[in-house]
Protein backbone atom coordinates (compact mmCIF):
# COMPACT_ATOMS: atom_id res chain seq x y z
CA UNK A 1 0.00 0.00 0.00
CA UNK A 2 1.16 3.53 -0.81
CA UNK A 3 2.45 5.51 2.15
CA UNK A 4 0.36 8.63 2.44
CA UNK A 5 1.54 12.11 3.32
CA UNK A 6 2.90 12.96 6.79
CA UNK A 7 1.69 15.66 9.19
CA UNK A 8 2.38 19.07 7.68
CA UNK A 9 4.20 21.70 9.76
CA UNK A 10 6.93 24.29 9.38
CA UNK A 11 9.36 21.98 11.19
CA UNK A 12 8.46 19.04 8.94
CA UNK A 13 8.92 21.21 5.86
CA UNK A 14 12.33 22.33 7.11
CA UNK A 15 13.38 18.75 7.81
CA UNK A 16 12.17 17.74 4.35
CA UNK A 17 14.13 20.59 2.73
CA UNK A 18 17.32 19.52 4.49
CA UNK A 19 16.85 15.79 4.08
CA UNK A 20 16.55 13.57 1.04
CA UNK A 21 13.49 11.71 2.21
CA UNK A 22 10.18 11.12 0.54
CA UNK A 23 8.26 14.00 2.08
CA UNK A 24 5.95 14.63 -0.90
CA UNK A 25 3.74 11.60 -1.07
CA UNK A 26 0.23 11.01 -2.43
CA UNK A 27 -2.46 12.63 -0.26
CA UNK A 28 -4.48 9.42 -0.13
CA UNK A 29 -3.59 5.85 -1.07
CA UNK A 30 -5.10 3.41 -3.53
CA UNK A 31 -6.49 0.72 -1.22
CA UNK A 32 -7.99 -2.52 -2.53
CA UNK A 33 -11.77 -2.70 -2.38
CA UNK A 34 -12.84 -5.14 0.32
CA UNK A 35 -15.98 -7.25 0.24
CA UNK A 36 -17.63 -5.74 3.32
CA UNK A 37 -17.64 -2.47 5.28
CA UNK A 38 -19.47 -0.97 8.24
CA UNK A 39 -20.35 2.12 6.23
CA UNK A 40 -20.24 2.61 2.47
CA UNK A 41 -20.40 6.24 1.37
CA UNK A 42 -21.36 6.72 -2.28
CA UNK A 43 -19.71 9.79 -3.77
CA UNK A 44 -16.25 11.22 -3.02
CA UNK A 45 -17.26 14.86 -3.15
CA UNK A 46 -17.31 17.35 -0.31
CA UNK A 47 -20.25 15.91 1.62
CA UNK A 48 -19.29 12.26 1.15
CA UNK A 49 -15.66 12.76 2.19
CA UNK A 50 -16.59 15.02 5.12
CA UNK A 51 -19.16 12.48 6.35
CA UNK A 52 -16.60 9.66 6.10
CA UNK A 53 -13.99 11.77 7.90
CA UNK A 54 -16.30 12.58 10.81
CA UNK A 55 -17.57 8.99 11.04
CA UNK A 56 -13.96 7.84 11.49
CA UNK A 57 -12.79 10.74 13.68
CA UNK A 58 -15.78 11.42 15.96
CA UNK A 59 -17.60 8.10 16.07
CA UNK A 60 -14.75 5.59 15.91
CA UNK A 61 -16.18 3.65 12.97
CA UNK A 62 -13.34 1.57 11.57
CA UNK A 63 -14.35 0.05 8.26
CA UNK A 64 -15.50 2.84 5.95
CA UNK A 65 -15.32 2.99 2.17
CA UNK A 66 -16.03 5.98 -0.06
CA UNK A 67 -16.96 4.78 -3.56
CA UNK A 68 -16.58 7.27 -6.39
CA UNK A 69 -17.78 6.86 -9.97
CA UNK A 70 -15.03 9.07 -11.39
CA UNK A 71 -12.33 10.90 -9.41
CA UNK A 72 -12.16 12.57 -6.00
CA UNK A 73 -13.60 16.07 -6.41
CA UNK A 74 -14.76 15.61 -10.03
CA UNK A 75 -18.27 16.84 -9.26
CA UNK A 76 -19.67 19.98 -7.71
CA UNK A 77 -17.03 20.39 -5.00
CA UNK A 78 -14.64 21.36 -7.80
CA UNK A 79 -17.20 23.27 -9.91
CA UNK A 80 -18.64 25.88 -7.57
CA UNK A 81 -17.64 29.53 -7.20
CA UNK A 82 -15.97 28.91 -3.79
CA UNK A 83 -18.21 31.29 -1.82
CA UNK A 84 -18.99 30.60 1.85
CA UNK A 85 -21.52 32.59 3.92
CA UNK A 86 -24.29 32.04 6.46
CA UNK A 87 -26.58 35.01 5.78
CA UNK A 88 -29.83 33.10 5.29
CA UNK A 89 -33.13 34.52 6.52
CA UNK A 90 -34.83 31.39 7.87
CA UNK A 91 -33.62 30.24 11.32
CA UNK A 92 -33.19 26.56 10.32
CA UNK A 93 -30.94 27.65 7.46
CA UNK A 94 -28.92 30.35 9.16
CA UNK A 95 -28.14 28.19 12.22
CA UNK A 96 -26.99 25.34 9.98
CA UNK A 97 -24.86 27.51 7.72
CA UNK A 98 -23.48 29.43 10.71
CA UNK A 99 -22.31 26.13 12.22
CA UNK A 100 -20.65 25.52 8.86
CA UNK A 101 -19.02 28.96 8.71
CA UNK A 102 -17.56 28.46 12.21
CA UNK A 103 -16.07 25.19 11.04
CA UNK A 104 -14.65 26.85 7.92
CA UNK A 105 -12.81 29.26 10.20
CA UNK A 106 -10.80 26.44 11.79
CA UNK A 107 -10.88 23.86 9.01
CA UNK A 108 -7.29 24.30 7.83
CA UNK A 109 -6.06 23.49 11.34
CA UNK A 110 -8.53 20.64 11.86
CA UNK A 111 -7.57 18.94 8.60
CA UNK A 112 -3.88 19.95 8.75
CA UNK A 113 -4.36 21.16 5.19
CA UNK A 114 -4.53 24.76 3.99
CA UNK A 115 -7.99 25.28 2.48
CA UNK A 116 -7.29 29.03 2.10
CA UNK A 117 -10.38 30.34 3.92
CA UNK A 118 -10.47 34.03 3.07
CA UNK A 119 -13.00 36.08 5.13
CA UNK A 120 -13.17 38.87 2.56
CA UNK A 121 -16.84 39.61 3.13
CA UNK A 122 -19.92 38.92 1.03
CA UNK A 123 -22.06 41.88 -0.06
CA UNK A 124 -25.63 41.57 -1.32
CA UNK A 125 -26.37 44.71 -3.32
CA UNK A 126 -29.69 46.57 -3.21
CA UNK A 127 -31.14 48.37 -6.24
CA UNK A 128 -34.19 49.97 -4.60
CA UNK A 129 -35.56 51.09 -1.24
CA UNK A 130 -37.64 47.91 -1.17
CA UNK A 131 -34.43 45.89 -1.57
CA UNK A 132 -32.88 47.81 1.31
CA UNK A 133 -35.87 46.99 3.55
CA UNK A 134 -35.60 43.31 2.62
CA UNK A 135 -31.87 43.28 3.32
CA UNK A 136 -32.38 45.15 6.63
CA UNK A 137 -34.94 42.56 7.68
CA UNK A 138 -32.52 39.73 6.82
CA UNK A 139 -29.66 41.52 8.60
CA UNK A 140 -31.77 42.02 11.73
CA UNK A 141 -32.77 38.35 11.75
CA UNK A 142 -29.10 37.39 11.49
CA UNK A 143 -27.96 39.75 14.25
CA UNK A 144 -30.68 38.41 16.58
CA UNK A 145 -29.20 34.96 15.97
CA UNK A 146 -25.70 36.22 16.80
CA UNK A 147 -24.53 36.15 13.17
CA UNK A 148 -22.58 39.10 11.77
CA UNK A 149 -24.41 41.41 9.36
CA UNK A 150 -23.76 45.05 8.49
CA UNK A 151 -26.19 47.17 6.51
CA UNK A 152 -24.20 49.47 4.22
CA UNK A 153 -25.56 52.71 2.84
CA UNK A 154 -24.12 54.29 -0.31
CA UNK A 155 -21.19 55.90 1.54
CA UNK A 156 -20.39 52.72 3.45
CA UNK A 157 -20.57 50.67 0.29
CA UNK A 158 -18.30 53.10 -1.58
CA UNK A 159 -15.70 52.77 1.21
CA UNK A 160 -15.91 48.97 1.40
CA UNK A 161 -15.92 48.29 -2.37
CA UNK A 162 -13.82 50.98 -4.10
CA UNK A 163 -14.01 49.11 -7.42
CA UNK A 164 -17.74 49.77 -7.60
CA UNK A 165 -18.65 53.09 -9.21
CA UNK A 166 -21.91 54.14 -7.55
CA UNK A 167 -22.21 57.38 -9.52
CA UNK A 168 -22.44 55.57 -12.83
CA UNK A 169 -25.85 55.96 -14.51
CA UNK A 170 -27.44 52.53 -14.22
CA UNK A 171 -30.81 51.13 -15.16
CA UNK A 172 -30.85 49.49 -11.71
CA UNK A 173 -28.91 51.97 -9.53
CA UNK A 174 -27.15 50.56 -6.50
CA UNK A 175 -28.38 52.16 -3.27
CA UNK A 176 -26.68 50.04 -0.61
CA UNK A 177 -25.99 46.52 0.51
CA UNK A 178 -25.84 43.93 3.26
CA UNK A 179 -22.36 42.79 4.25
CA UNK A 180 -21.43 39.62 6.06
CA UNK A 181 -17.81 40.32 7.03
CA UNK A 182 -16.96 36.69 7.94
CA UNK A 183 -18.28 35.39 4.64
CA UNK A 184 -15.78 34.95 1.85
CA UNK A 185 -14.15 32.24 -0.20
CA UNK A 186 -12.41 28.91 0.34
CA UNK A 187 -10.28 27.11 -2.21
CA UNK A 188 -12.71 24.39 -3.37
CA UNK A 189 -10.26 21.74 -4.64
CA UNK A 190 -8.26 21.98 -1.41
CA UNK A 191 -11.42 21.12 0.51
CA UNK A 192 -11.85 17.85 -1.41
CA UNK A 193 -8.14 17.02 -1.13
CA UNK A 194 -7.93 18.01 2.54
CA UNK A 195 -10.92 15.88 3.57
CA UNK A 196 -9.72 12.96 1.42
CA UNK A 197 -6.25 13.10 2.96
CA UNK A 198 -7.55 13.42 6.52
CA UNK A 199 -10.07 10.60 6.01
CA UNK A 200 -7.45 8.32 4.42
CA UNK A 201 -5.12 8.97 7.36
CA UNK A 202 -7.87 7.64 9.66
CA UNK A 203 -8.10 4.45 7.58
CA UNK A 204 -11.03 5.31 5.29
CA UNK A 205 -10.80 3.50 1.94
CA UNK A 206 -11.30 5.93 -0.95
CA UNK A 207 -12.06 3.90 -4.08
CA UNK A 208 -12.15 5.87 -7.34
CA UNK A 209 -13.53 4.62 -10.66
CA UNK A 210 -16.15 2.48 -8.90
CA UNK A 211 -19.76 3.23 -9.85
CA UNK A 212 -22.65 2.09 -7.68
CA UNK A 213 -25.38 0.59 -9.85
CA UNK A 214 -27.87 -0.64 -7.27
CA UNK A 215 -28.69 -1.62 -3.72
CA UNK A 216 -29.21 -5.22 -2.60
CA UNK A 217 -31.82 -5.80 0.11
CA UNK A 218 -33.00 -8.64 2.32
CA UNK A 219 -35.80 -8.71 4.90
CA UNK A 220 -36.55 -5.01 4.58
CA UNK A 221 -33.01 -3.69 5.04
CA UNK A 222 -30.25 -2.90 2.61
CA UNK A 223 -27.38 -5.37 2.77
CA UNK A 224 -24.93 -3.78 0.36
CA UNK A 225 -24.35 -2.11 -2.98
CA UNK A 226 -23.83 -3.47 -6.47
CA UNK A 227 -20.90 -1.73 -8.12
CA UNK A 228 -19.01 -1.91 -11.38
CA UNK A 229 -16.32 -3.70 -9.35
CA UNK A 230 -18.68 -6.24 -7.84
CA UNK A 231 -20.88 -6.52 -4.78
CA UNK A 232 -19.87 -4.75 -1.55
CA UNK A 233 -21.69 -5.63 1.68
CA UNK A 234 -22.42 -2.74 4.07
CA UNK A 235 -24.21 -2.28 7.38
CA UNK A 236 -25.08 1.29 6.50
CA UNK A 237 -25.10 3.07 3.12
CA UNK A 238 -24.79 6.82 2.63
CA UNK A 239 -25.63 8.48 -0.67
CA UNK A 240 -23.91 11.85 -1.13
CA UNK A 241 -24.16 12.16 -4.90
CA UNK A 242 -24.72 15.85 -5.52
CA UNK A 243 -25.95 16.36 -9.05
CA UNK A 244 -27.38 12.84 -9.28
CA UNK A 245 -29.61 12.70 -6.20
CA UNK A 246 -32.82 12.51 -8.20
CA UNK A 247 -31.41 9.84 -10.50
CA UNK A 248 -30.29 7.78 -7.49
CA UNK A 249 -33.80 8.10 -6.05
CA UNK A 250 -35.30 6.84 -9.30
CA UNK A 251 -32.74 3.99 -9.35
CA UNK A 252 -33.90 2.96 -5.87
CA UNK A 253 -37.59 3.32 -6.75
CA UNK A 254 -38.20 6.57 -4.84
CA UNK A 255 -39.50 9.75 -6.48
CA UNK A 256 -37.66 12.56 -4.74
CA UNK A 257 -38.59 16.26 -4.60
CA UNK A 258 -35.64 17.02 -6.87
CA UNK A 259 -35.09 18.38 -10.37
CA UNK A 260 -31.55 18.51 -11.71
CA UNK A 261 -30.56 21.77 -13.39
CA UNK A 262 -27.34 23.23 -14.74
CA UNK A 263 -25.58 26.18 -13.16
CA UNK A 264 -22.73 27.80 -15.06
CA UNK A 265 -19.64 29.49 -13.74
CA UNK A 266 -16.81 31.20 -15.55
CA UNK A 267 -13.49 32.88 -14.90
CA UNK A 268 -11.65 35.67 -16.72
CA UNK A 269 -7.95 35.96 -17.39
CA UNK A 270 -5.97 36.96 -14.28
CA UNK A 271 -5.60 40.66 -13.52
CA UNK A 272 -4.09 42.71 -10.69
CA UNK A 273 -6.15 42.99 -7.48
CA UNK A 274 -9.42 44.77 -8.28
CA UNK A 275 -12.15 43.29 -6.13
CA UNK A 276 -11.44 42.63 -2.45
CA UNK A 277 -14.82 41.11 -1.60
CA UNK A 278 -17.65 38.99 -3.01
CA UNK A 279 -20.45 40.93 -4.75
CA UNK A 280 -23.95 39.59 -5.31
CA UNK A 281 -26.09 41.72 -7.64
CA UNK A 282 -29.73 40.64 -7.99
CA UNK A 283 -32.11 42.64 -10.11
CA UNK A 284 -35.02 42.15 -12.49
CA UNK A 285 -35.22 38.36 -12.11
CA UNK A 286 -31.55 37.75 -12.81
CA UNK A 287 -28.41 37.83 -10.75
CA UNK A 288 -24.65 37.64 -10.86
CA UNK A 289 -22.12 36.94 -8.12
CA UNK A 290 -18.52 37.80 -8.67
CA UNK A 291 -15.25 37.58 -6.75
CA UNK A 292 -11.56 37.62 -7.58
CA UNK A 293 -9.57 34.43 -7.08
CA UNK A 294 -6.14 34.47 -5.46
CA UNK A 295 -4.68 33.89 -8.92
CA UNK A 296 -6.35 37.10 -10.12
CA UNK A 297 -9.17 35.78 -12.30
CA UNK A 298 -12.66 37.14 -11.78
CA UNK A 299 -14.91 34.18 -10.97
CA UNK A 300 -18.61 34.67 -11.71
CA UNK A 301 -21.88 32.83 -11.88
CA UNK A 302 -25.57 33.56 -12.20
CA UNK A 303 -28.91 31.78 -12.27
CA UNK A 304 -29.81 28.31 -13.50
CA UNK A 305 -29.92 27.51 -17.21
CA UNK A 306 -33.65 26.87 -16.76
CA UNK A 307 -34.33 23.25 -17.70
CA UNK A 308 -33.25 19.82 -16.38
CA UNK A 309 -29.90 18.66 -17.67
CA UNK A 310 -27.04 16.33 -16.81
CA UNK A 311 -24.82 17.46 -19.70
CA UNK A 312 -22.47 19.69 -17.64
CA UNK A 313 -22.45 22.05 -20.66
CA UNK A 314 -24.05 25.44 -20.20
CA UNK A 315 -26.21 27.27 -22.74
CA UNK A 316 -24.52 30.15 -24.59
CA UNK A 317 -27.47 32.47 -24.10
CA UNK A 318 -27.14 32.10 -20.36
CA UNK A 319 -23.40 32.61 -20.39
CA UNK A 320 -24.04 35.87 -22.22
CA UNK A 321 -26.62 36.94 -19.65
CA UNK A 322 -24.21 36.37 -16.74
CA UNK A 323 -21.43 38.28 -18.49
CA UNK A 324 -23.80 41.15 -19.33
CA UNK A 325 -24.79 41.43 -15.68
CA UNK A 326 -21.15 41.34 -14.55
CA UNK A 327 -20.16 44.07 -17.00
CA UNK A 328 -23.20 46.14 -16.00
CA UNK A 329 -21.97 45.89 -12.42
CA UNK A 330 -18.27 46.52 -13.10
CA UNK A 331 -17.90 48.17 -16.54
CA UNK A 332 -14.10 48.28 -16.16
CA UNK A 333 -13.90 44.49 -16.72
CA UNK A 334 -15.61 44.69 -20.11
CA UNK A 335 -12.41 44.24 -22.12
CA UNK A 336 -11.22 41.13 -20.25
CA UNK A 337 -11.07 37.79 -22.01
CA UNK A 338 -12.84 34.74 -20.67
CA UNK A 339 -10.42 32.02 -19.66
CA UNK A 340 -12.73 29.13 -18.83
CA UNK A 341 -16.42 28.35 -18.54
CA UNK A 342 -18.00 25.25 -17.03
CA UNK A 343 -21.25 23.97 -15.55
CA UNK A 344 -22.30 21.80 -12.65
CA UNK A 345 -25.47 19.78 -12.16
CA UNK A 346 -27.52 21.16 -9.26
CA UNK A 347 -30.09 19.07 -7.43
CA UNK A 348 -32.81 21.66 -7.00
CA UNK A 349 -35.40 20.76 -4.39
CA UNK A 350 -39.00 21.98 -4.20
CA UNK A 351 -38.19 24.54 -1.49
CA UNK A 352 -34.54 25.34 -2.24
CA UNK A 353 -33.24 23.70 0.94
CA UNK A 354 -31.26 20.43 1.23
CA UNK A 355 -32.44 16.90 1.99
CA UNK A 356 -30.82 14.94 4.83
CA UNK A 357 -32.80 11.87 5.76
CA UNK A 358 -33.18 8.12 5.48
CA UNK A 359 -34.01 6.87 2.01
CA UNK A 360 -36.56 4.07 1.78
CA UNK A 361 -34.67 1.64 4.05
CA UNK A 362 -33.70 2.14 7.69
CA UNK A 363 -29.97 1.83 7.01
CA UNK A 364 -29.80 3.86 3.81
CA UNK A 365 -29.10 7.59 4.20
CA UNK A 366 -29.41 10.44 1.72
CA UNK A 367 -27.41 13.65 1.90
CA UNK A 368 -28.35 15.71 -1.14
CA UNK A 369 -30.60 18.24 -2.80
CA UNK A 370 -28.12 20.99 -2.03
CA UNK A 371 -29.32 23.38 -4.75
CA UNK A 372 -26.69 26.17 -4.87
CA UNK A 373 -25.76 25.82 -1.19
CA UNK A 374 -23.72 22.64 -1.18
CA UNK A 375 -20.17 23.90 -1.00
CA UNK A 376 -20.64 26.27 1.92
CA UNK A 377 -22.50 23.57 3.86
CA UNK A 378 -19.81 20.88 3.65
CA UNK A 379 -18.20 21.09 7.14
CA UNK A 380 -21.51 21.25 9.06
CA UNK A 381 -23.10 18.63 6.83
CA UNK A 382 -20.20 16.19 7.33
CA UNK A 383 -20.23 16.52 11.11
CA UNK A 384 -24.00 16.43 11.57
CA UNK A 385 -24.63 13.71 9.01
CA UNK A 386 -21.93 11.48 10.51
CA UNK A 387 -23.71 11.84 13.86
CA UNK A 388 -26.99 10.89 12.19
CA UNK A 389 -25.50 7.82 10.50
CA UNK A 390 -23.62 6.70 13.63
CA UNK A 391 -26.45 7.20 16.14
CA UNK A 392 -29.51 6.68 13.95
CA UNK A 393 -31.06 9.94 15.22
CA UNK A 394 -30.83 13.18 13.25
CA UNK A 395 -29.20 15.97 15.29
CA UNK A 396 -31.34 19.09 15.83
CA UNK A 397 -29.19 21.03 13.36
CA UNK A 398 -30.44 18.96 10.39
CA UNK A 399 -33.87 17.78 11.57
CA UNK A 400 -35.58 20.44 9.47
CA UNK A 401 -34.07 18.93 6.29
CA UNK A 402 -36.15 15.73 6.57
CA UNK A 403 -37.96 14.50 3.47
CA UNK A 404 -41.38 14.49 5.14
CA UNK A 405 -41.39 18.29 5.43
CA UNK A 406 -43.17 18.59 2.09
CA UNK A 407 -46.02 16.35 3.25
CA UNK A 408 -46.39 18.13 6.60
CA UNK A 409 -46.10 21.64 5.15
CA UNK A 410 -42.84 22.58 6.88
CA UNK A 411 -41.04 23.78 3.76
CA UNK A 412 -37.93 25.95 4.11
CA UNK A 413 -38.57 28.11 1.09
CA UNK A 414 -35.97 30.87 1.46
CA UNK A 415 -37.10 32.56 -1.77
CA UNK A 416 -40.80 31.92 -1.44
CA UNK A 417 -40.81 30.52 -4.96
CA UNK A 418 -42.98 27.45 -4.38
CA UNK A 419 -42.43 24.00 -5.88
CA UNK A 420 -40.77 25.32 -9.03
CA UNK A 421 -37.08 24.33 -8.74
CA UNK A 422 -36.05 26.25 -11.85
CA UNK A 423 -37.01 29.46 -10.03
CA UNK A 424 -35.42 28.66 -6.66
Amino acid at each position, binding site marked *: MTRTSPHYSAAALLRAALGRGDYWRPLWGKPTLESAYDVVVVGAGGHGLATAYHLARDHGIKRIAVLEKRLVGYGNVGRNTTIVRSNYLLPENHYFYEDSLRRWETLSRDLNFNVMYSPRGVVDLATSDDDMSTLARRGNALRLAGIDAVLLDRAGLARFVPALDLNLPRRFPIVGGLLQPRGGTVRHDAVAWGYARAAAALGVHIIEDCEVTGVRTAAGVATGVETTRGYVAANRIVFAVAG*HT*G*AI*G*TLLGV*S*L*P*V*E*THLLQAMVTEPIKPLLSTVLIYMYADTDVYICQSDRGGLVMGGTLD*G*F*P*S*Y*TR*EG*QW*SHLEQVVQSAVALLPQIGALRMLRQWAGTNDMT*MDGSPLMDRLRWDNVFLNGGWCYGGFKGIPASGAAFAKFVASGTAPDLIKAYRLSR*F*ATGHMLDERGAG*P*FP*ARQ
Partner: protein
Amino acid sequence: MNIPCPFCGRRDVEEFQFRTLVPDPDAEAFARLYERVNRSDDSLEYWQHVSGCRAWLVIRRNPTTAEIHEVRVLGEAR
Protein backbone atom coordinates in the same frame (compact mmCIF):
# COMPACT_ATOMS: atom_id res chain seq x y z
CA MET B 1 -29.63 23.28 -28.09
CA ASN B 2 -32.37 23.61 -30.70
CA ILE B 3 -35.93 22.39 -30.34
CA PRO B 4 -38.00 21.41 -33.41
CA CYS B 5 -41.32 23.16 -32.80
CA PRO B 6 -44.16 21.43 -34.72
CA PHE B 7 -45.39 24.85 -35.94
CA CYS B 8 -42.24 27.01 -36.23
CA GLY B 9 -39.53 24.54 -37.11
CA ARG B 10 -36.13 24.23 -35.46
CA ARG B 11 -35.57 27.15 -33.07
CA ASP B 12 -33.03 28.04 -30.40
CA VAL B 13 -33.80 26.85 -26.88
CA GLU B 14 -33.72 30.49 -25.74
CA GLU B 15 -37.19 30.96 -27.30
CA PHE B 16 -38.67 28.23 -25.14
CA GLN B 17 -39.57 28.09 -21.49
CA PHE B 18 -39.25 24.83 -19.59
CA ARG B 19 -42.35 24.39 -17.40
CA THR B 20 -42.11 21.15 -15.44
CA LEU B 21 -41.40 17.45 -15.66
CA VAL B 22 -44.50 15.47 -16.66
CA PRO B 23 -45.82 13.80 -13.51
CA ASP B 24 -46.58 10.11 -13.29
CA PRO B 25 -50.26 9.88 -14.43
CA ASP B 26 -51.07 7.51 -11.56
CA ALA B 27 -49.52 9.76 -8.91
CA GLU B 28 -51.56 11.38 -6.16
CA ALA B 29 -51.99 15.16 -5.96
CA PHE B 30 -49.16 15.52 -3.42
CA ALA B 31 -46.70 13.62 -5.60
CA ARG B 32 -47.72 15.55 -8.71
CA LEU B 33 -46.83 18.77 -6.91
CA TYR B 34 -43.74 17.83 -4.93
CA GLU B 35 -42.14 14.71 -6.41
CA ARG B 36 -40.39 14.23 -9.73
CA VAL B 37 -39.61 11.30 -11.96
CA ASN B 38 -35.97 12.27 -12.35
CA ARG B 39 -33.86 10.17 -14.68
CA SER B 40 -30.49 11.01 -16.14
CA ASP B 41 -31.17 9.07 -19.37
CA ASP B 42 -34.79 9.85 -20.23
CA SER B 43 -36.93 12.86 -19.37
CA LEU B 44 -40.52 13.74 -20.26
CA GLU B 45 -41.16 17.48 -19.95
CA TYR B 46 -43.68 20.26 -20.54
CA TRP B 47 -42.28 23.27 -22.42
CA GLN B 48 -43.85 26.36 -23.92
CA HIS B 49 -42.65 28.17 -27.04
CA VAL B 50 -43.05 31.53 -25.28
CA SER B 51 -41.14 33.64 -27.80
CA GLY B 52 -42.79 31.94 -30.78
CA CYS B 53 -46.18 30.35 -31.34
CA ARG B 54 -46.76 30.02 -27.57
CA ALA B 55 -47.83 26.40 -27.95
CA TRP B 56 -47.40 24.07 -24.99
CA LEU B 57 -45.26 21.11 -25.97
CA VAL B 58 -44.52 17.69 -24.57
CA ILE B 59 -40.87 16.85 -25.13
CA ARG B 60 -39.09 13.58 -24.52
CA ARG B 61 -35.33 13.94 -24.42
CA ASN B 62 -32.13 12.55 -22.94
CA PRO B 63 -30.85 15.06 -20.37
CA THR B 64 -27.34 13.58 -20.40
CA THR B 65 -26.73 13.76 -24.17
CA ALA B 66 -29.24 16.59 -24.89
CA GLU B 67 -30.76 14.51 -27.70
CA ILE B 68 -34.44 15.24 -28.37
CA HIS B 69 -36.46 12.14 -29.15
CA GLU B 70 -39.99 13.45 -29.45
CA VAL B 71 -41.80 16.79 -29.62
CA ARG B 72 -45.58 16.96 -29.78
CA VAL B 73 -48.24 19.53 -29.03
CA LEU B 74 -49.87 19.13 -25.63
CA GLY B 75 -53.30 17.57 -25.92
CA GLU B 76 -52.77 16.07 -29.37
CA ALA B 77 -52.54 12.32 -29.71
CA ARG B 78 -49.23 10.73 -30.65
